């Protein structure tokens, strides 16, 4: 498959691994903040290819992991209404809320449908005019413009029964807060597809304020190894900057149209991130102009009081401060089939990934 196979070349990967080994002179900790990267790294077994000095840590790049339990509780509450159909990406279905989850509600008769795209959800809304279709909008800057496009379409088509429940967030505040909090990072592997939308400008503060580099990486093994090499070279040369490894997909200015759509529908608000607390202007709220499609505004529900599981240290893990094996619940009470915290339930959460490739 074009643009995929060439970047999975075993020999190039090996050569890059050797080059990394030759270049690095001291231990470095590189953080990736993109669930897709966590998955690729795990899927291809990248850590086994790297020299000891290079440590990869997973940051809060998994939108499922950083979303609050209250979001799930509210989604569960929506699903319990007879007049609501929940449409959601598959990622959310097993995430535990305070007392239930969407797949449990589905088993109990709630109308919960997994969709591949918001366009499918719009179809559901079109076919079920008497129901309220609530689309669960999770994801960062890659997915948010798509939710925006969906809202605009809904409005133009007069789909007054279509609502978005936004948990959308943006990346840069999290990247800065981690460093502010003293998490030890020597460089960032920048999110690949977020950057196709945003361009490289949003990361400029990282080298400027903190002297750390950001290399925007693709997802294939060659991309990741190349990006790691570029970061290691930046560190050795003491030249932190924002570079694009993923040049075939990321333009420096990004996708301007998508940025405009995002801006048209959403505005920033303070938002709570698991592991990081409340970050200023890090969440996306639907603007008043589109409030008729905002589930939070239009659909009243009683949400149960929040219960966070005892012993779960997902927060620390998301910040890279603790490793999954530091958690008392890891592998015993909390496993991929029986997750307690979100880091374990999401395929790309740190704990799930660790469970799979680090035992």
């Amino acid at each position, binding site marked *: 498959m074009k643009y995929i196979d060439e970047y999975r070349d075993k020999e190039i990967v090996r050569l890059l691994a050797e080059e990394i080994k030759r270049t690095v002179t001291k231990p470095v900790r590189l953080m990736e903040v993109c669930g897709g990267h966590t998955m690729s790294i795990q899927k291809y077994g990248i850590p086994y290819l790297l020299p000891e000095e290079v440590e990869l840590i997973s940051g809060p790049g998994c939108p499922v992991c950083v979303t609050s339990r209250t979001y799930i509780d509210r989604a569960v509450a929506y699903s319990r209404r007879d007049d609501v159909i929940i449409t959601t990406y598959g990622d959310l279905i097993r995430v535990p809320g305070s007392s239930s989850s969407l797949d449990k509600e589905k088993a109990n008769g709630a109308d919960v449908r997994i969709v591949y795209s918001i*366009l499918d959800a719009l179809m559901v809304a079109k076919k079920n005019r008497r129901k309220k279709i609530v689309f669960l909008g999770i994801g960062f800057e890659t997915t948010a413009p798509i939710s925006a496009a969906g809202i605009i379409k809904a409005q133009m088509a007069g789909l007054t029964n279509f609502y978005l429940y936004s948990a959308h967030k943006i990346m840069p505040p999290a990247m800065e807060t981690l460093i502010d909090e003293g998490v030890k990072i020597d460089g960032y592997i920048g999110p*690949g597809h977020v950057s196709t939308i945003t361009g490289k400008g949003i990361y400029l503060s990282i080298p400027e304020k903190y002297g750390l580099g950001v290399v925007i990486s693709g997802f294939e093994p060659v991309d990741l190894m190349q990006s790691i090499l570029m970061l290691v070279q930046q560190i050795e040369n003491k030249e932190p900057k924002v570079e694009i490894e993923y040049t075939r997909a990321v333009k420096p200015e990004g996708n301007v149209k998508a940025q405009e759509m995002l801006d048209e529908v959403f505005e920033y608000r303070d938002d709570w991130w698991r592991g990081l607390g409340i970050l200023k202007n890090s969440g996306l709220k639907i603007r008043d102009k589109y409030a008729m499609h905002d589930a939070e505004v239009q659909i009243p529900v009683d949400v149960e009081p929040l219960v966070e599981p005892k012993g779960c240290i997902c927060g620390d893990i998301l910040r890279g401060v603790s490793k999954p094996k530091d958690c008392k619940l890891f592998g015993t009470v909390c496993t991929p089939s029986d997750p307690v915290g979100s880091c374990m339930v999401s395929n790309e959460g740190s704990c799930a990934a660790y469970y799979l490739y680090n035992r």
Partner: protein
Amino acid sequence: MCLSIPARIDKINEDTAICTVGATSYQASLELLKDEQVEVGDYVLIHTGFAIQKLDAEEAEASLKTFDEFRTLNKQMDTEEQKTNKRLI
């Protein structure tokens, strides 16, 4: 966070396109690329039903060329190393 895959545009119908990955076709929305010149034969990244960016063939060629050069250079280095027991780079 970003399951996106490069797919080839086989057919364009106004603001949607039939895109192919391997031998699988998907009808994706081109709304986010309204301001771009998109043609049959172009490759785009698809994410949850939308094409989010066009792949730059030139950049891809350039990066693949770099890898090829890297591979050749490395072969030379390997041969050098075997002869002289030293590695320059």
